[in-house]
């Protein structure tokens, strides 16, 4: 496969032909199958997909967190021109936290219950910088202030169970930015949180990208989050990228039938009609059909679909893994026709 051109500007992170496998009962399961993408500074890249699409494995692969017996068997993960897959354990440790940060789905369980928040933050702050405890404390208080924690200097002596989930996710973000990494990987960062809290976290992540120029990889199954936060989207289906495009393009003119199906199946309160649905279910990793993996659920399936399609460039940075749209072009979604202005108003507040 050809080396992909960066979407805009020099990329901070380039992933090329990444393959991650897990041994299964019936041979190896390819959880991440030949995935390539670029991430620019200040860009939020969304990775969406159903459970089992490999999106979380992909995110974890980027930091070498694939848990045994899984392993990365091919590809390159290039950060600032350095291939992370060629690094020693020690060098990889230097990358973690200092150059790539990560936040997880369940903030409450992502903190050690036995140590204070301050202890855990200081451990992160002193991991890569030779600074005194006092300097580290100043640094973490500053970071906690930035994420909007009230009275940080007092609260660092509290234990995780004394915080709410939303506040812990803020602490998590504060922790991830202590060493000013260039890339932040956020794996379903708001899934475990209430929607009003989710809004606060979304705002923080947005500020990370906009104010601090961090490149953010946002793994999510929430299309609303993608729409509000991401610049570019990768849609994954059973281990493969099936579509990649700027966010506007994906929502207006998705090229892959799966992406189109997902978008059309979103409940829309203005109609209240039957939802458009993607029929069937994802195939098991162990029982993949030959050819296109979506063929058994696809409304447009053709003879050609029994051959595996490649991820091909369409135009305007849109890539798709589908024979049909590569040949016949795109079908617009429901969104593209509807008048969004009145939708914006009906949400309570229109744009300023």
């Amino acid at each position: 496969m050809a080396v992909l051109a960066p979407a805009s500007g020099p990329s901070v992170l380039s992933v090329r032909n990444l393959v991650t496998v897990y041994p299964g009962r019936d041979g190896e399961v390819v959880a991440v199958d030949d995935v390539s993408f670029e991430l620019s500074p200040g860009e939020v890249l969304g990775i969406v997909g159903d459970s089992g699409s490999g999106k979380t494995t992909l995110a974890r692969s980027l930091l070498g967190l694939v848990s045994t017996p899984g392993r990365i068997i091919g590809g390159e993960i290039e950060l600032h021109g350095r291939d992370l897959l060629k690094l020693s354990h020690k060098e990889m440790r230097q990358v973690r936290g200092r150059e790539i940060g990560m936040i997880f789905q369940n903030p409450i369980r992502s903190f050690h219950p036995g140590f204070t928040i301050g202890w855990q933050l200081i451990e992160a702050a002193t991991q890569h910088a030779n600074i005194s405890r006092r300097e580290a404390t100043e640094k973490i208080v500053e970071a906690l202030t930035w994420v909007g924690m009230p009275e940080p200097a007092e609260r660092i002596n509290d234990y995780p169970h004394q915080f709410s989930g939303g506040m812990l996710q803020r602490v998590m973000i504060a922790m991830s930015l202590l060493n000013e990494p260039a890339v932040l990987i956020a794996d379903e960062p708001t899934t475990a949180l209430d929607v009003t809290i989710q809004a606060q976290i979304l705002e923080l992540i947005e500020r990370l990208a906009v104010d601090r120029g961090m490149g953010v990889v946002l793994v999510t199954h929430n299309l609303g989050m993608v729409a509000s936060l991401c610049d570019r989207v990768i849609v994954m289906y059973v281990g493969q990228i099936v579509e990649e495009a700027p966010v506007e393009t994906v929502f207006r003119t998705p090229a892959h039938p799966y992406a189109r199906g997902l978008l059309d199946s979103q409940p829309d309160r203005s109609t209240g009609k039957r939802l458009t649905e993607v029929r069937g279910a994802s195939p098991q990793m162990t029982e993949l059909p030959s050819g296109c993996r979506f063929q058994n659920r696809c409304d447009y399936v053709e003879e050609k679909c029994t051959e595996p399609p490649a991820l091909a460039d369409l135009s305007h940075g849109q890539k798709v893994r589908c024979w049909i749209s590569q040949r016949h072009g795109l079908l617009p979604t429901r969104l593209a026709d509807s008048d969004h202005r009145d939708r914006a108003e009906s949400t309570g507040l229109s744009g300023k």
Partner: protein
Amino acid sequence: MILLLGRRLLEAVGVLFVLSVLIYTIGTLVPGDIAQQMTGIEGATPERMAEFRERLGLDRPLLVRYADWLGDAVRGDFGVSLFSERDIGADIRAQFPVSFEIAVVSVMLAVIIGIPLGVYGAVHTGSILDRLLRGLSLIFFSVPTFVSGVLFVWFGSMFLKPFYTSYYIPFTEDPLANLRAISLPCLAIALPASASIIQMTRSTMISSLQEPFIDTARVKGVRETRVRYLHALRDALGPVVTLIGLMFGALVGGLIIVEQIFNLPGLGRGVLVAIGQRDFPYVIAASLAIATVYIAANLVVDFLYPILDPRQRDQE
């Protein structure tokens, strides 16, 4: 939290009191008439037996006898042995340290052996050593002490002469000789005990290593050894500490066989002898001492728990 611990302490005293009533009642109701047995030597006529009962106060109601006994007991006076007429309190005070020392050293040994091997098993699940350990644990666990103890005596007396003595010397008199005397019995106890510590550590450690906060630590760039031995082990320790506490409590009273085999003058052997002689004042006092240790061990675990897991501190 202090309130909670204070309440635990009061509860422990309460439990001890109830236990003393139970032990005393059971101890006196045990079949076998002490009067008959004692007088039997000199010819048991009913008059002699009655006289004997009166001398020991056995003709008074149970409740009165208990109150009397309790009054003395809290002052450390457990009366005299029916058999040897020696001061029971003094006897127990002499025997208790022996058992206590063996229990402490055994548990320490079990912990030193068990926790690192348990951690190793968790980190290298499925490795050859892990599988070997699990097999060995099963063997250590299932071989009864009276078999392993005898084997240890035999093995020690044949091949490990420097570690084998047939008599006990207190630590205060000759520390080295003392260690020689207790090393084999302690090993005999520690091996099966360490087997259960290995298993417990291994399983709690495996689940701790899968916790999301382990990922967090790795993502911070923390060294893998620190991730394992600080983050994961700290989290896994709670249930292990409970196990150790219970183990220790159970051990002090459970040394009967080992003390017998290795000829150690501890509480266990004392109880064994006393039961044979129906020397119930001694059995009651010794049982109470053993129960106290058990309760104290539990209390220590209760105190340790909030230190290990801060979530416990805020309960109530």
